Each structure stands twice: as C-alpha cells, then as structure tokens.
C-alpha cells in the first residue's frame, strides 16, 4: 500500500511534466492539424536554456532560490518561445498550402537540426545539476518504508495546475483564444472575418513552446540530468498523452499526461523498467486503433 502510494505520487509528478508538453502538441494539432514533431526537441531546448540561465543567475550572485527559479522560469519561457516561433516560421509556414505530409517531414528535419545543434553547442555529455529543491514531507511510514511527498513534486504539480488554469482561461476568455478557436474551426472563414490567421498560429506555437520550457525546467529540477536526446522519447510520450486525452482538447492533454505518467511509473514499479517505453508506445497504438478520438476529444466526422 505504501509502495503503491509512493508510485502514485511519482506518477502524478511525471504525468504533470508529460501533460505540459502534451498541451503544445494538442494545441498545434487542433489549430493546423499537423503533428509538430519538433515539439519534443523544443522541450529539450527549454531544459537546456533553463540550465544555462540558472547557472548564469547563480553566477550573478542571486542565490535566493525562489527568486532564482522565478527568473529562470520567465526567461526560459521567453527564450524558448522564440525557438518555437522560429521553427514554425521557417519550417511550417511556407508549407501551409502544401500536401499534408510535407510539414511532417520538415518537422522531422527540424527535430534533427535542434538535436544536433544542441549537441554541437553544448556537447554530447549529460549535464548534471545538483538538487536545488530538497526536503519533503513523510506522509506515512510502515515497516521502514516511508512515503515521501517531496517539495519538488509539490512544486511541479502546483505549477502545472496553475499554468493549466491560466492557459484554459486564455483559450476560453481572451480574444486570442477566440481567434484560436475560430482558426481551429475554419481557417478560411476566420481570415475572412478579420482574424490574422498566421499570427494566431504563430502565437499558438509560442504558447506551446513556453509550456514546453516550463516542462523542461521541471524535468531538470526533478531528474537533475539532461542531455540533447531527452526530447525524442519525451516527445513521443507526450504526443501519446495528447492522443489519449483527445487531440485538440486542453483538459484532455492534461488527463492523458497523467494517465501516461501513472502507467509508466506503475509499469516500471511492478513489471519491468526496460519495457516501460514499450508500454507507453503500445498504449499509443491501442488508443489510436480503438479510440481514435481519445477520452475527451470530439469524434472526427469525415467529409466526403
């Protein structure tokens, strides 16, 4: 029971990180119907930017951790957004009218570019970071096994919930959100009614990248090591989460992220660590086959 509870806590934490990345996938898919394959690597870029900004701020002498982290969060979100914007501008916008698979191929190209760029610029070695947020609460104890809810886990889950609420508000209440939903419904009609479609799509990528940066920072704080390759697997899992929750749906992405995080954690805890990725990928296939519209998505009507 204690073991189970501990895994539940770990799974929810992991799921929050996946959920944050999944939102980027789901928003982009919702609005232009393409899989932003490079999004996982934007997450990786976000993690690296967080690491560098953190070291720079510490170097400047600001050592009060909450302030440092807040600064890192804001700067990393801003800088990673520019990456997201650039990727969209360079690789996807010129292909808006092209055949359907073209942007997916450039997305793969972009993913390779980002990975190798970071590898060249920062080296291929893993980058370790000493734990910044330590401590936690012992929830219960039996037979020497202590269930720990650590501060970092609380931080991750809280940040995720706050950001989720914030972004849901943006989508549902602001004029930008309205424009996004209009573009999602019918891009041509939206442009006829005065929505700047290109700008709206760009902003969607910016929002997705900002959330990916948060996920990158959380990943860095939680695991303490990053390398240039983390984006690939995390990206596929987050995409699985987005599909599982119903692509195009924000709460769906969060729910999907939680489920994927929990499944992966429990699979590792009770079955085998080696095959945890197989579990996640199999879920992707199973969901797509049997439940293509996901848990919270709208069933897609095919127009003939």
């Amino acid at each position, binding site marked *: 029971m204690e073991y189970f509870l501990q895994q539940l806590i770990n799974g929810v934490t992991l799921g929050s990180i996946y959920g944050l990345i999944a939102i980027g996938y789901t928003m982009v898919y919702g609005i232009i119907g393409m899989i932003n394959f490079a999004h996982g690597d934007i997450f990786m870029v976000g993690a690296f930017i967080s690491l*560098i900004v953190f070291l*720079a701020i510490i170097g400047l002498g600001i050592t009060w951790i909450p302030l440092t982290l807040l600064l890192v969060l804001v700067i990393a979100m801003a800088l990673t957004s520019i990456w997201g914007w650039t990727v969209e501008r360079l690789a996807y916008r010129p292909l808006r009218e092209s055949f359907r*698979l073209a942007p997916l*191929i*450039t997305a793969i*190209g972009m993913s*390779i570019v980002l990975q190798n760029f970071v590898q060249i610029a920062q080296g291929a070695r893993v980058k370790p970071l000493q734990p910044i947020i330590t401590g936690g609460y012992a929830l219960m104890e039996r037979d020497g096994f202590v269930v720990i809810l650590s501060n970092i886990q609380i931080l991750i889950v809280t940040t995720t919930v706050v950001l989720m609420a914030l972004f849901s508000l943006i989508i549902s209440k602001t004029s930008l959100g309205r424009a996004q939903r209009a573009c999602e419904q019918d891009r041509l009609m939206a442009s006829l009614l005065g929505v700047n479609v290109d700008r709206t799509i760009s902003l969607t990528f910016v929002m997705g990248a900002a959330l990916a940066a948060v996920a990158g920072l959380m990943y860095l704080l939680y695991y303490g090591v990053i390398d240039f390759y983390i984006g690939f697997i995390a990206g*596929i899992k987050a995409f699985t989460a987005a599909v599982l929750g119903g692509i195009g749906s924000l709460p769906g992405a969060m729910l999907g992220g939680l489920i994927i995080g929990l499944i992966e954690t429990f699979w590792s805890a009770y079955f085998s660590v080696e095959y945890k*990725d197989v579990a996640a990928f199999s879920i992707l*296939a199973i969901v797509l086959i049997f439940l293509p519209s996901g848990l919270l998505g709208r069933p897609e009507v095919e127009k003939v």
Partner: protein
Amino acid sequence: MAKAKAKPTRAQQTSPAASSKFDLVGGLRDAAIAALIAFLLAIPLLSERTVQEAGGLVLENRWWLAFTAAVLVFAGRLALNLFEQSRRNAGDGLRAAISRNTAWLGDTSRFLAPGLLVFAVILPIFPFSDRYIMDLSVLVLTYVMLGWGLNIVVGLAGLLDLGYVAFYAVGAYAYAIIAVHYDLSFWVCMPIAGVMAAMWGIILGFPVLRLRGDYLAIVTLAFGEIIRIVLLNWTDLTNGPNGISGIPRPTLFGLEFKPFGENTFANFFGLDYSPLQRIVFLYYVILALALLTCAVTIRLRRLPIGRAWEALREDEIACRSLGINTTNTKLTAFAIGAMFGGIAGSFFATRQGFISPESFTFIESAIILAIVVLGGLGSQVGVAIAAVVLIGGFELFRELENYRMLIFGLAMVLIMVWRPRGLIATRMPSVFLKDAKTIGADLVGEGHR
C-alpha cells in the same frame, strides 16, 4: 508561381509602393529583425557553453558566436531579400526560380537511368575502384535498395512510414539468428528473412493502416522503437546490446571467400586470393537485389494493385467510392515494402558479420525517408541519385560527425520548403489515355489536404 506571389515578405508588406524597385530600406529592416531573432536564439545556447568541472557545471562564455550568428543571418537574409525582389521584378519568386533551375534534373532523368545502370555494372573494373570505393558503393547500394523498398510504401502508396528500420532490423536479426543457430546458408535464409519481415509488416500494419496519414506515421515510429527496445532487452534471443557476431558470409554456389581452405573462390578459379574478391561479390549481390526491388516495383506499377496504390495516394475517398479495398491495398504495399527492407537487412547482417540494436535507430529510418523524399516521392531514378548524394555526402563529411547531421536536417527542411516534390519532381502517370504526358509534380495537388 502564384503561391510565391501570394506570400509577400515582410519587406514588401511594409512598403507596397516600392514593389517595382529594389526596396533596400525594407530589406535591411527585415534582415535586421531576422538578425535580432537569430541573436536571441543564440544567446543562451550558443553563447554560453556548460562545462563540467570539479565543483559542478560552470559556464564558458562565447559571446562572439552569438554575434557571428547574428551577422551571418543578417547577411543571408538581406541577400535572400534582394534576390527575391529582383526575381519578383522579373516576374516570379524564389521558389519558382529554384523549381525552374532544377527542372533539368527531371528532363535528364530519362537518359540518366540506363547510364547509371551501365556505370553500376562495370564499376568494379575501373582502376580507381579500390577497396574503399567498393565498400562505399556497397553501402550506397544498400541504401538505394532500402530507398526503393520504402518508395513502394511512401512514394507509391502514400503511406508515411517512420518505422521502416524495424523491418530492416527484423530481416537482419532473422538472418543472423537462423544462420548462427541452424547453420543455413545466406541464400536459404535471405528469403526467410524477407518473408519474416513481410509477416511483421502485415502483423503491425493490419491494425493501424486504417489510420490517417500522420497518425500512421507516429504509430509506425512507435513500432520501430518498440522493436528496437525488444531487440535490446530480449537477451536470450538477440544477445541484447552486445549484438550477434560471427554471422556467416555469403557463398557463391558453395564457394567461400576465404584466404585458405579447400572450397574457396580463389582456388576454384585458380586465382590468387584477394580480399577485394569478396567485396566485389558482395557488390554484385546487393546490385542484383536492388535491381530486383526496382524491377518488381516497375512491374507492380503496371498491375492493378500498383495502380490502386497510386490512386490511393492521390485520393483515398475516390478509391473507396470506386470499390477498392483500401485496407488490403495498403497492407500489400506495407508488406512488400517490408519484405524488401527485410532482405536488405539480411544483406546488411551478412556484410557486417555483426549486428546490434544500435544499427537500427530512428535516425536510420529518417535517413531512408530523406532519400525517398529528396529523390522525389515515387521516382526510381531520383531515389537512386538521392542515395548516392546523401550517403556519399555523409562519407565526404565523415570527420564532421555532428555537423553533417545538422546539415542533413537543414537540407531536409530546405528541400521540402523549396521543392516539396523532391529533386526529380516529375511523375509519369502509369496509366494514361492516348499519349503519356509528364506531369510536373509542382502542379499536382494531393487528395487529402
């Protein structure tokens, strides 16, 4: 052409009146914005390098890199702007210009094919064909074969398969395991490996082929990763990360390629032994296999199933309305593509003599896909040329290990943006009324937008 015109650059949007002259101010401003963005992109990742030291990570400052990046982008963007403006004054955009200036690639491809074939057949007798060249040629031909195999799936049937390397792996492991455990020769195992791969293609393909294009792509990617992880962890069968070594070499009707022994190639023909003999033999084996793939593809295109593939690529809904069983049609394309991938895999195993899961990563799938895409989806000659260019280029830049992948990724993006139908972007329809017209692929739309 209309497409390029419909998307004015920012420089033009700011000053529409200057469209007939060079708009230097607008161009400069646009370039400055691009440079600023490049600078912002470069700030953390390029200008600061994290270095591991005794006390933990420290930053190493390299500000000049960020400035260099900004200056380079400024110059590049300005040149591009001015070029586009001069082009537009002449009446068309950059994309159309590139499209036109590379159109000869499509025109010459007709005469290129026989020439390339003859060259490939007589390559080993050229004096410059030393061991290095022959090894490289074998590698290139392996990718040509893989490209042609994937071309059936992606180019003809229009199914984006990001996990093609899985079938390559299945073929390689099937051959390695059967040959090592049961002591069968390459020529017996190769068809078995092909059938195994085709079987896996059907098993994996059957449930997922009803999915839409991009979902299919992601699921095949996931399958590719699953197979790699299984190969990595199923230690009893695959020997895990250590791989399988001592895979038997192929023989020519029982004649082995060894320096000593009774039944060797050199002995039988009364020649002196040379390691080059084995490599030339391997070269002809893979050449024959690749040509077989090509011949089968060309024949299949004339059969109803091949026509159904191409129809499916162009418009799936129309196909369904006309009574084509789309799932079966896709499945045959998937299985046949997988079979050739598996055969190429068994060749890879026998050539290397050693295989491990490291040879079958996603990047391998991406390279094969890039070959098909750059060659022009569906064009046989294009795929062959793209394989030569890509793999040869990889070899040329061997020292620049990471940079070549970076360039590879950039090339994938740029070619897609400027020439979305590949370098040789003409398609000759397999079925036509009265006379065959080559269609410039730039003009062809695709069913599912």
